[in-house]
């Protein structure tokens, strides 16, 4: 246990360095790329220099880069991520609001993903060569090739526009995102959750399902599985206690990576469904060079990725006692 604790602390330390390096890199990039957030405010209609100067001073952008960098970290240590150049909204508030929505979308997306992957993967492996297996393959290959903005709009049409035009409100799932929650459970308007979460889920669910199928089939060929059947153990015990547990190790790695990748999918999904999450905010803010928002959100995204990686690493030891957290195996 002591080893695991030390390992965790060490990894958290590494995570802080990664966050610092990534934020510093992004901060630098904002000063290198062409244009600046203030001059970008002049669009079809130009703003007088006096107006641009007032805005520049307001956000402290008239200060040298190093001063701005120091101020950013100083404010960060005090828990203040600054204000959006675009609409003066507090980045802390944007994070607070956005994280809740994105977190719920990610939770339900990940849950749906797991359920779909397990269902399809298990069915395909158990009924290898069956129509169900073939359908699973088609589903896996087909769904992965569809971009989110296409699958999102298609889902909106099939489960929103079409049922509404046919007066089938029961089948209309394109509803506003729920506004009342108990944790991650929507307490009203749950229908609005289903389509975005499914769109997030299906992209990597197919890949994980294929991975589970392959892994299971490989494990099922192992001697100890045949031995287990020969000893008269029930199919349920062999499948779930012996086969599935071993087959899950590579799947957990993929699932962990997928959780990070889901973040990218969620960005597009939030955009397509206009959800008030962090994803659409990141995309919009990056385009308008709204650096306080992008940097604030980047800290969260990078930390999230690092934490998920850490949890995945730690979970290896829980799933397979032969594996130690420091990467060395017991023999």
């Amino acid at each position: 246990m002591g080893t695991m604790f030390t390992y965790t602390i060490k990894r958290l330390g590494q995570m802080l360095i990664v966050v610092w390096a990534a934020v510093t890199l992004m901060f630098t990039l904002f000063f290198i790329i062409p244009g600046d957030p203030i001059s970008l405010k002049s669009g079809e209609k130009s703003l007088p220099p006096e107006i641009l100067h007032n805005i520049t001073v307001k956000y402290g952008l008239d200060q040298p880069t190093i001063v701005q960098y120091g101020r950013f970290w100083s404010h960060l240590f005090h828990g203040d991520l600054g204000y959006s150049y675009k609409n003066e909204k507090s980045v802390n508030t944007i994070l607070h609001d956005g994280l809740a929505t994105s977190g719920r979308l990610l939770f339900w997306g990940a849950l749906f993903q797991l359920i779909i992957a397990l269902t399809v993967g298990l069915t395909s492996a158990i009924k290898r060569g069956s129509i169900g297996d073939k359908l699973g393959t088609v589903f896996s290959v087909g769904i992965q090739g569809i971009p989110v903005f296409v699958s999102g709009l298609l889902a909106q049409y099939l489960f929103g526009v079409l049922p509404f035009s046919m007066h089938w409100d029961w089948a209309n799932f394109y509803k506003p995102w729920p506004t009342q929650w108990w944790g991650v459970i929507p307490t009203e308007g749950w229908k609005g959750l289903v389509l975005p979460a499914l769109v997030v889920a299906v992209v990597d669910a197919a890949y994980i399902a294929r991975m589970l199928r392959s892994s299971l089939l490989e494990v099922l060929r192992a001697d100890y599985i045949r031995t287990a059947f020969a000893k008269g153990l029930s199919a349920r015990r062999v499948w779930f206690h012996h086969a599935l547990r071993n087959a899950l190790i590579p799947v957990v790695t993929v699932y962990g990576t997928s959780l990070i990748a889901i973040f990218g999918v969620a960005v597009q999904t939030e955009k397509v469904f206009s959800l008030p999450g962090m994803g659409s905010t990141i995309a919009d803010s990056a385009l308008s060079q709204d650096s306080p928002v992008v940097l604030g959100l980047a800290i969260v995204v990078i930390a999230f990725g690092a934490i998920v990686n850490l949890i995945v690493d730690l979970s290896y030891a829980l799933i397979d006692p032969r594996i130690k957290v420091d990467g060395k195996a017991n023999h």
Partner: protein
Amino acid sequence: MKVQKLSVRATALAAAVALIAGGSVMTAHAATAPTYVDCQLFAAGEPDHIDPALTSTLVGANVATMLYDGLTDTDANGKLIPAAASSWSTKDGGKTWVFKIKSGLKFSNGEAVTASSFVNGWKRAAAEKMASEVAYHNYFIDGMEAYNTGKGAFPASSVVANDANTLTVKMVDVTTDFPSIAGHSVFSPIPSSMNSADGKVEEDGTKLIGNGPYMLASAITKRAGGEVVLVPNPNYGGTKPTLSKITFKISSDVNAAYNAFASGQCDNGPIPAGRYTELLGKWGTKGVKTTLGTDYWGFNWEDPVVGGTKNRDLRSAISKAIDRNQISTVIYQGVRKPASGLLPPGLPGYKAGQGLTSTRDLEGAKADFKRWTAAGNKITTPIRLSYNDGAGWDKVASIIIANLKDVGIPAKLDPFPADGTYFTKMRQGKGQIIRAGWFADYPIADNFLFPLLDSKSIDGDNLERYSSSKFDALVASARATTNPAFAQSQYRLAEKQALVTDAVITQTVNRGIATVLAPSTSTFPISPLGMIVYDQIVKN
């Protein structure tokens, strides 16, 4: 056999997932008629602000106009009408204006709207620390520019509350159009509770207090996926609004926004590009309106091939070659109509036919081009049609290139990255034929002609870097006169000078708004300034 049982369980699990996802599928309701909620969709971009002192976007200003009534307003025909002011007058031809404020007006918190409310509102909006993007509209007022730039105190002698109902405003120069300008949201009044409010006041729905037909119901979220909810202002002094609640939903994708409308989430929605004919045919055309905006292409006045007086025949040939009807029908499916001048229909002083032509004149174009080449000119590399990429302008440019090919003028697409720097680069003279457009801030000719074509606007919105002493003199005389009719005639001459004599820009289409509406919407007024008059929407 055991494997089969497992398979059955897996199938059951899948069914459970379907049940969770499908939910009410198992409790199927009978088919019901579509029902809509009182909701409006923003899909043209999120509002930057809804604080009238700060908002610079059409969508933000549209909400601000529901929260605040300024001194004046514009009716559906573009005519100036009273709002909080009952009347206005000038005794010195437009150098000083006196507005009479209606009695009995109140903010939503019950405080009376007086002349001082306007003084305080203008003082706040132009304050240097507010750093408002729209504060420059105050520069017409004597001393306001110095105040906004921190070089002077608030010009208390230029914006004076003589009594509760009288507001006197002293201008820098004669400004005969100031009553129209005063309709801009930056000239809104504020209650005393907002005198020292900064730009973050709108975060809290209880603190942004106005005198308009509606008031904020809750704190707002201005980002995509957010909402702004308005309810009627119980103290409103004008005609009571018809809708008991308006929910503005902010969408970041026009296709998703249309789908949200078509799924019953909102009463109106945007139309995705290329689907105008289909969707207006399906939902009706009540939500279509031509607005005070014009799209045009300008010629870089400093370019050796297309600029200057010596290349006037080439510019004329290009202008005559363009098929504006094709652009209108193919790209905008009739929503944006072919324009005949820079000033749009509906603008006071508008006169049709101020441009070289509004219809295609292929023979005229060929003759002009022949005359230009006969003078020893030639095109060695295709002329560049510069535009900001990613906004669909390539389609318009492609039509023009095909049009020019018929005349024998070689041209090519010249896309600039969609990184927001296009207009900055054009201001620096990097374009050749420049894609541009303008939407009125207020319904006056000067709002088009001065910023777009006056030599004082070079490095600003005069993207062509056009410099004509004749044009400048005409605009200057229009600005200086105390005779509105003479001013209009001078503006018309200035428009002719730029569009015909110098042919420095060529207009294509007048802008328009097109939204799809739920069948229950019987009245959906849109002002020429592109503002949906939400308080006058009528539903069956």
